[in-house]
């Protein structure tokens, strides 16, 4: 009798398969399954009640969910673009510095080193209508009113975006700076000899070369911002009156406070579409930018 042996490549990869199955695949399948049940954390037996697509149907007709979905896209779009512009500006200026650049690079990364929860508390205090720094400064400059930074719908979204941008602009700056360091000097020098203006050099040489770096930063940050939770939860909790409700504050309240984990998981799966769409979009852009530079393949 010939004893069949598993192929060597399979045996070598088996530990990795087991680990990935245990920490990714099984929880993913489990959460997908639970999104088809009325699973409540406080009633574990509800995990075994199959309700089909009931949770999904409920979400598809839930105006609160889609408002939060739309607001998350708006938040994502504004934050990413502002971070890109600021990050690009900072990187270009840093690239010009010849003395103390390393120290400045380290300082630039400080905001990234703080926990988002602490950043949330910091800006909650700064924008507090009563004892906050901003209103105190405004009042000492002659204003006689207290701006409701975290209450007014537009001001509250602005405050949250400000905190998010303050914390993460350096991600863009560092990645774009890495692109600038890797950039060959010859085309820029040739452009200078040919009489190009600084703007023309930037628009037609520097920027196209930086685009792959920008799209990588965009992809990373879009995934990050789409799951924005900590800062929002601390600063406004999604309120008041759901004015700053984003997908993850809604999901966490549904799952952990209301204990409706089945419904929250269904929300999670619909929300993943958002991240997948942004990732596909940015990867396409990345491929196109690389193709423009003759780097495809």
């Amino acid at each position: 009798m010939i004893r069949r042996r598993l192929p060597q490549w399979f045996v070598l990869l088996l530990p990795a398969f087991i680990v990935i199955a245990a920490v990714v695949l099984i929880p993913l399948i489990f959460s997908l399954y639970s999104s088809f049940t009325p699973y409540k954390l406080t009633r574990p037996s509800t995990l075994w009640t199959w309700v089909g697509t009931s949770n999904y149907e409920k979400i598809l007709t839930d105006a609160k969910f889609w408002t939060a979905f739309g607001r998350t896209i708006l938040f994502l779009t504004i934050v990413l673009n502002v971070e890109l512009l600021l990050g690009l500006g900072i990187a270009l200026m840093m690239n010009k510095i010849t003395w103390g650049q390393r120290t400045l690079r380290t300082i630039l990364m400080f905001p990234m080193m703080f926990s988002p929860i602490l950043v949330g508390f910091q800006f909650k205090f700064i924008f507090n209508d009563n004892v906050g720094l901003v209103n105190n400064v405004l009042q000492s400059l002659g204003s006689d009113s207290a701006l409701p930074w975290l209450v007014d719908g537009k001001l509250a979204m602005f405050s949250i975006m400000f905190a998010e941008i303050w914390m993460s602009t350096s991600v863009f700056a560092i990645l774009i700076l890495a692109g600038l360091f890797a950039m060959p000097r010859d085309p820029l020098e040739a452009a200078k000899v040919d009489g190009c203006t600084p703007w023309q050099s930037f628009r037609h040489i520097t920027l196209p070369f930086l685009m792959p770096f920008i799209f990588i930063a965009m992809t990373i940050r879009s995934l990050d911002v789409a799951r924005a939770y900590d800062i929002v939860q601390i600063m406004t909790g999604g309120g008041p009156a759901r004015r700053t409700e984003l997908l993850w504050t809604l999901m966490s309240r549904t799952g952990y406070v209301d204990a409706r984990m089945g419904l929250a998981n269904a929300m999670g799966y619909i929300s993943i579409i958002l991240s997948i769409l942004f990732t596909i979009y940015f990867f396409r852009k990345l491929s196109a930018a690389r193709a423009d530079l003759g780097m495809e393949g």
Partner: protein
Amino acid sequence: MKKLNLMKALLASSALIMASESVMAQDFGNFDGVTIEAKLIGGEQYEALYARIADWEALTGATVNIISKKSHFEIDKEIKSDMAAGTTSWCVGSNHSSFAPQYEGLYVDLNGLVPADVIADFVPGNIAASTVNGELLMLPRAQFDVSVLYYLKSNYEDAAQAEAFEAEYGYPLAVPDTWDQVRDQAIFFADPPNFYGTQYAGKDEAIVGRFYEMVVAEGGNYLDEDNRPIFNSDAGQRALQWFVDLYEAGAVPAGTTSYVWDDLGQGFASGTVALNLDWPGWAGFFNDPESSKAAGNVGVAIQPMGSVTRTGWAGHHGFSVTNDCENQDAAVSLVMFLTSEESQLAESAGGSLPTRTAVWEANVAAAREGDDPFRAESLAAFAAGAEYSFAVPAIPEWGESTNLVFPELQAAIVGDKTVEEALNDAAEAVDELMRESGYY
């Protein structure tokens, strides 16, 4: 401050002597070598009681291992996760009358495990609020909460101000006895952004509880007997209009919709709020010069009444024993110790309200005979206020319903919806929840 501490110490020691007889008589059992794992609510005001756990360990030979100590909302999330994961073999958990109905099947019915005469020593209303579907799920600790009105006394000592108020509103300026008077005075006193007439909790369960007590004060209710939402009645609309009026008039801080208890307590202690409906735990804090700019200027009065009655949304903390606990006898003994007369006297000496009849009587008598008029005034106000207290519906959906209602209340307050629209939308959402939960 020293005088206050001395008073507290005297109260505590005299109370301890009074209680020593009952403690000596009470046998907490012998549990040599047993370890009880506990999940407790954490916070400065709760620590004094936990310091007594060493005494129970010495009495019984058992050991207590506190495996988690967090705020109540965090403990609540952790317990729900434990229930989902089936990791509920720890023995003693902090509980609250508003939270207890959610933990279906987690905690043991203490009726059969605690002697009936011990249960009879507690305030009957507190025992009723600790009972869900006939099961006594926790023994109440000396952390009974009902709110009364704190106010700055100086606002009522200024003759020119009193004259101006009477000229504008047509009745004399005095500590308010109705919510309408609170509204008038709050608008009159307000001078934003430097001084506010009042403030209220503006989010989560906190604002719904405050709205609930106003609805009852106006003659309405939150749910009917079948658990259908009825808070969108005329009474409900009058209640919510009160919050809206104050916000529109700028009599409350603009950020009040994001305030919960700590923000409110710190706000009144800053001396920039005239009237403040708040919990008993703040009394000492408000009148302590080290923590409060309002110290020495704080008055305490019974909660004002609505157009129908006075009401007080009330709740209390307690301790429960899990069904999965291996040493339930030892766990029950610990819970009885932490809620004993001696423990309640010691804990309530810090300013919290007891849940045992004898401890209420002892505290009120000691305050009356003592030389701390503020403590006597506040205890008298809380004793009177407690008579109008009510607990939230003992259903698991209470917490979830508040998450549906509070954004709608906020929407009316900040002007996104009319009072009627907001309440109808909230009622519709709660109605759907109750239907899904099978109440009707």
